[in-house]
């Protein structure tokens, strides 16, 4: 619907002009540049280091961006009371949620594009010429974008429930925890308690498994990511984002703005 697009576009415009984002992008580009120097420490692995560190920088800074703007999605609008301007117009509440989500996703998409461009410039500078194997990092970047889609959805969800600061803390915690679900499930299984084991297995499937998307090291070593993984992870991200947005809509429909 046109309204959702309008909310998306203006959320993007507002977020894209945020000073903080510029700083983060600059940092990311610096890191990518630095990893060229880093690679020169050990012979033979410059390429690996650049891809590894470069992609990791994009991932880390992107997540930071996602969290920082993500918390402004709803809770900041409520705190600053800018939300009255939108909700007093003929806009359905779920349209607001969707528009905000896509607006932020678009912002991240564009920022990632800038960082990825920086990355390829660095790669070209280092290798002097690019070949077909240099398309592999694009696959990793796609996985990174899937991670962002999830992180933003979490930020949106928490944003509907609590204050900006708490939303940031919760989102970050979920992001970290989501990398250790395998370990969690393992420990649950090793305690010989059916209850604990059951709970940890439940959590394994319930919490977002961010570790699924970690393909950076493999990519750095030139390993191709299978088509099955592309499809399965895309599907995972799509399903999970749907769950989170629906949950956010449920919460948001009942919210009152004093």
């Amino acid at each position: 619907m046109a309204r959702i697009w309008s909310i998306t576009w203006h959320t993007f415009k507002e977020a894209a002009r945020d000073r903080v984002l510029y700083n983060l992008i600059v940092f990311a580009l610096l890191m990518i540049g630095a990893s060229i120097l880093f690679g020169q420490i050990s012979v033979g692995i410059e390429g690996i280091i650049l891809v590894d560190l470069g992609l990791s920088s994009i991932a880390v800074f992107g997540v930071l961006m996602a969290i920082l703007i993500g918390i402004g999605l709803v809770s900041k609008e409520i705190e600053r009371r800018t939300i009255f301007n939108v909700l007093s117009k003929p806009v359905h509440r779920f349209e607001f949620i969707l528009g905000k989500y896509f607006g932020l996703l678009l912002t991240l998409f564009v920022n990632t594009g800038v960082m990825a461009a920086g990355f390829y410039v660095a790669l070209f500078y280092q290798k002097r010429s690019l070949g077909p194997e240099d398309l592999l990092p694009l696959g990793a970047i796609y996985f990174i974008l899937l991670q962002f889609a999830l992180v933003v959805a979490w930020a949106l969800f928490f944003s509907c429930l609590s204050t900006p600061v708490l939303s940031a803390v919760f989102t970050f915690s979920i992001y970290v925890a989501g990398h250790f679900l395998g370990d969690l499930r393992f420990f649950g299984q090793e305690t010989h308690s059916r209850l604990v084991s059951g709970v940890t297995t439940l959590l394994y499937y319930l919490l977002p498994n961010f570790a699924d998307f970690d393909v950076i090291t493999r990519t750095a070593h030139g390993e191709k990511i299978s088509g099955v993984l592309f499809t399965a992870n895309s599907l995972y991200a799509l399903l999970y984002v749907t769950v989170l947005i629906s949950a956010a809509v449920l919460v948001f429909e009942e919210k009152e703005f004093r």
Partner: protein
Amino acid sequence: MPAIETTELTKDYAVGFWRKRPKRVLEDLNLEVASGEVFGLLGPNGAGKSTTLKLILGLIFPTSGAVRIFGSDWRDVSLRARIGFLPENPSFYDNLSAEEFLNYAGSLFGLAAGERRRRAAKLLEQVGLAEVGDIPVRRYSKGMVQRLGLAQALINDPELVILDEPMSGLDPLGRREVRDLILDLKAQKRTVLFSTHILSDAETLCDRVAILHRGRLQGLGEIGEILAMGVASTEIVLEAPSPGVQDSLASMGVSAVRTGERVRLSVQDEAEVERVLEIAVREKVKVVSITPVRLTLEDYFMEKVEKGKPVREKFDRQALSRKG
């Protein structure tokens, strides 16, 4: 059909951390705003004015009771296409300019791009922001923000305009402009509902007012009726009346205060005023002034709010205590 109609509208908030106790902020509000009228919602802070407006707009939900707008249930989101809203102390996105924001607002109403731009330009002109339309809103002063608020409330050419404390943050010039704007809206046959705690504004603008206090409707009426609720008394100032005149007046039971050459009389009813004037003319006493001391909105308000002494008594004391 009334523009807005509330029936037994009640709102409770749950207060407290563990055991939630309901706090009633609005109770059994019955209100009707007719099409084309300017309606004022008055009351001290915390009376429930903002609550009422937000209930109408669906920003908060009634605990019980009903709200109908243009005859339809408040839940109908499409109704808002016909409403313009200015929130109290409005706030806008930092990085967008006023033009961009108005464009955004217009798009939410489904206006076409060209139409949006046209209206935005016109409205910015109208509220005096034409020169600064393209700078980011975070650099606006409070008064400028308020004006942008008014502009965005009108972008959709609304039948019903709801304003929450529209005068707040404005200097006297700004307030005058807003007053003129509201009168303008009235001339265009739009319905205006606004809340304020500045009584003089309500007096000059409203057809009718409702007075809220502690969530309850304390009074409702047409301004004209309230203000004409009797000339409470008439103050007549005479210059150097002779002792004989003074005696006649005293025998009439008219209270008088003498300051220098002037005598100030407080006369209760119409008939007495005529008699005093007859005496003055006959005795060739100069009448300096005749001033009807009328019930102001403030008095009406204070009575409703304080529920203290009856209004008339206060008047005499006021009138008599004024120095010459």
